[in-house]
């Protein structure tokens, strides 16, 4: 009993100094800012990552895996020739590691000779015109960026290649910015040389606000002259959203034909 009392007294003294202040290991670093001179690779692009804070180290992977302190260490701008997902994470001896910053780099595709839009782009978000989705320039997270081609209904166009061309896949890049009522497509239909080929349905549901660049890659693996792509917006915003029941915007930046 006496021992218990002694331990209690010592523990009480140990606890006496109350510290209300936040501790470093409780707080995470901000994810690094990752930029590329272009996210579509023709020959090579330069990739930079940064978190301007003393004693921070950045590590990265080029295969989509989560970086750790055994991954490649970032020490300066990278010359990148290979497409893929580049993931960066910040580490510091005293702070919790950051979340992951991901940047997807695309291989430059085959450029169609012409594109014929069957539906009209929004007058407010016309991008740089009919060729916005074929100009090899990706949009940013800012929906006002001129690389975004905005629709509030169905976007439908046919692209024409000069000669019969083997297309392995099509990548359609789009913006998700739920606060700004910009959601992924609800459906994509593809027609090859005028014939219906396939429909892609989108099942991704967001339960909270999110802003990101995303894409859908559609396998084709056919030789063809024309492709018609019909992309439908989300027609009803979800229950949790302030605009529930109203239609969403659809913002696309690039159609890449590989």
């Amino acid at each position, binding site marked *: 009993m006496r021992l218990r009392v002694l*331990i209690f007294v*010592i*523990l009480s*003294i*140990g*606890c006496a*100094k109350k*510290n*209300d*202040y*936040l*501790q*470093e*290991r*409780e*707080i*995470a*670093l*901000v*994810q690094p*800012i990752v930029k590329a001179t272009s996210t579509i690779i023709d020959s090579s692009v330069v990739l930079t990552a940064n*978190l*301007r*804070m*003393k004693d921070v180290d950045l590590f990265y992977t080029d295969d989509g895996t989560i970086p750790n302190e055994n991954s490649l260490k970032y020490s300066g701008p990278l010359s990148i020739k290979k497409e893929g997902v580049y993931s960066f994470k910040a580490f510091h001896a*005293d*702070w919790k590691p950051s979340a992951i*910053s991901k940047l997807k780099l695309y291989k430059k595709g085959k450029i169609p000779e012409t594109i014929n839009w069957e539906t009209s782009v929004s007058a407010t978000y016309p991008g740089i015109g009919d060729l916005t989705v074929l100009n090899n320039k990706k949009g940013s*997270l800012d929906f006002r960026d001129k690389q975004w081609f905005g629709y509030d209904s169905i976007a439908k166009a046919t692209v024409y290649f000069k000669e019969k061309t083997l297309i392995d896949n099509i990548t359609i890049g789009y913006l998700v910015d739920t*606060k700004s009522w910009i959601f992924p497509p609800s459906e994509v239909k593809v027609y090859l040389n005028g014939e219906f080929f396939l429909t892609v349905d989108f099942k991704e549901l967001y339960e909270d*606000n999110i*802003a990101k660049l995303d894409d859908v890659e559609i396998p084709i693996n056919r030789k063809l002259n024309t492709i018609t792509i019909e992309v439908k917006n989300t027609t009803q915003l979800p229950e949790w959203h302030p605009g529930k029941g109203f239609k969403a915007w659809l913002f696309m930046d690039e159609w890449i034909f590989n």
Partner: protein
Amino acid sequence: MSRRSFLKKSSLATLGLLAYPAYSSAFELNKNKDVIIGHNTHRYKVNLNWGNLDPLKTPVNDCHEMIQDSKGRIVLLTNETKNNIIVYDKSGKFIESWGTEYPGAHGLTLIKENGTDYLLITDYERHQIIKTTLDGKVVFTIDFPEQTGLYSNKKEFKPTETTVTKTGDIYVADGYGNQHIIHYNNKGELINVFGGHGEGDDQFLNAHGICYDDRDANNPSLLITAREMNQLKRFTLDGNFIESINVPGALICRPVIHKKDIYFAVLRSKNAIDFDSGFVLIMNDKNEVISCPGATAPNYKNNNLEELYQTVRIFQHPHDVCIDDDENVYVSQWNSGKTYPIKLTRV
């Protein structure tokens, strides 16, 4: 007891047996480090527990602004209509609360008249400015400035902030409305209107905050934030544009002058991936940024400030700062999970 403080105390208890007293030179009591944020002369420890109250009894919604009154008490304005005003002492102890009729409570300014404190509350949902005593009695209200001819109805007027000069003139920033700055004399009579929506030098995108700057007693002026433009603009008292001070990347809310420095809550970092990416920004008497608690160290290259952004995930959406007579900073936040203010203790 919160889960976090329970864990902290448990770990101390485990170490306590060995640590006190004979082993204290061999073992550190607590190997954790207190967070210290900020740069140069303005660095702070962070207290997230300050001012926490029972949300069932004294809830907050957005914590919009704070001031310290002449008695040294910290006064918080929230748009929670169960208690729009919460009064604390500096230790964070609750003193009193009042106010149930300010759904758009946004701006809070302290006025001292003949030794008595008054408050000016801007309410963008009521489209009014309300002067009250410190215990909540309404002295007068200012309605939308119809006589300017710039407003077709009161709903266009969504004031966010006021400031009061030494002579008692009142300036109102219509930061969520038509972006005008409206000048009244101390009787509440309209004197002038300037600013307005636009990207010109003398215009604003989100004229969110305003303050009377008499640090140069011979040349008092007005400092007004253009939050979306990441700029602080200076005007003469009669509404002529003087200069813009760029703060790249920082959505500054209102300027708060304390001694010779200007303090700002930064709502968010312009280009951050996360929306909740705010921090605090401090300028010296030359209007140079000297410290950014929670963000990148300020760095000037060829007299241009490098873009600022959040570096550690402490703040969500800081909306105002209040600096007390001990140089500590209280940070009230918008859209941050109905959390109470954060206290930064100067080190």
